[in-house]
């Protein structure tokens, strides 16, 4: 038995006796419900916009000696106390998964008179990086070499790091007197 809300039992019986009237009632109800449903739904519209930008990759090497940009040893006296200088190296980079290597070049150290400083008399070693890079010279090796010396390898992921290079002059030889100069180059290369 179906009862229409608002209609009494007798009303339903009346409609049953008059099927045409019942159909008319049903049609009118359908129209009203249909129109109401359309109005009741909230109207909506959407639009979508993409936001994008590119961050430039940068990889920079910064080198700082204790006394600025010069590694200054001396005055040196043979067989006197060993002197040590430190280079602080930092790598600033925002590249991802881009490992790198750091080399040193110091082909010669000579005096103004042209005398070469003994190659074995300048030693170097490097510390591990603070962010996972690994020193490749953990024990002292001669720093003066015509070849590039690999001193540091970054972690696989690369990223910023910093470490220190120690330079020592053991003062074990007799040097010709004079003012000795050499250029240390620290080189950053991609792996």
């Amino acid at each position, binding site marked *: 038995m179906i009862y229409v809300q608002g209609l009494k039992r007798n009303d339903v019986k009346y409609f049953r006796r008059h099927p045409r009237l019942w159909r008319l009632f049903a*049609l009118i109800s359908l129209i009203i419900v249909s129109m109401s449903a359309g109005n009741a739904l909230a*109207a909506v519209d*959407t*639009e979508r916009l*993409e*936001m994008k930008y590119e961050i430039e990759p*940068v990889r920079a090497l910064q080198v700082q000696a204790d006394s600025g940009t010069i590694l200054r040893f001396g005055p040196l006296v043979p067989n006197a106390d060993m002197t040590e200088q430190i280079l602080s190296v930092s790598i600033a980079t*925002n590249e991802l998964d881009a490992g790198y290597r750091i080399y040193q070049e110091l082909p010669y150290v000579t005096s103004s008179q042209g005398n070469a400083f003994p190659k074995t008399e300048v030693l170097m070693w490097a510390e591990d990086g603070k962010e996972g890079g690994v020193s490749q010279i953990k024990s002292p090796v001669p720093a003066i070499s015509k070849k590039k010396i690999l001193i540091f390898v970054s972690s696989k992921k690369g990223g910023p790091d910093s470490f220190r290079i120690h330079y020592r002059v053991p003062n074990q030889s007799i040097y010709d007197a004079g003012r000795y100069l050499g250029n240390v180059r620290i080189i950053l290369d991609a792996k």
Partner: protein
Amino acid sequence: MNRHLKTLLFCFFVIGINAGNSYAVFRLNVESLEGEDAIDFGRLKAMEDGGTPIPVTESKRVRLNVTTDLNQPYIVSQMVDREPVNTRGVPTPLSAFRVFATLNRGSGTNRMPNRIPLSTGETQIYLSDSAGEEAEMILQYDIEVPPFQRAGNYRTSITYRIVTV
């Protein structure tokens, strides 16, 4: 009258009534003021070539235009899908972005008059007056690149929505 013909006429009648409603206009148009099809901040630096961080800021503007004849109040809102991420999934925090709205047209309420950090989820931009008048507003998006932000191409998307209340 034929019974089938009656049914057909009735169907046309109902469809006609509802079709009248469906022709009502309620439309949102969104466009970048820089004439691009996106909010494109372009190529940005997170640090100088020497490795020193530099504060880089960039702004882009978007115009929102609401066309309606419904005479019903409505809300304009935005939804940021997620933090912008680069192709390797590294995000830029949403705190690096600010947004505010200025009203060009419309007598409703600007719900975003001051710079606020961008956030995910729905944020109301504008609430129309009770008559649901048409409106136009400009949204300005600012980015301040975080120092040492990882390199790459970053993307996200923003969905703008108008809905009657």
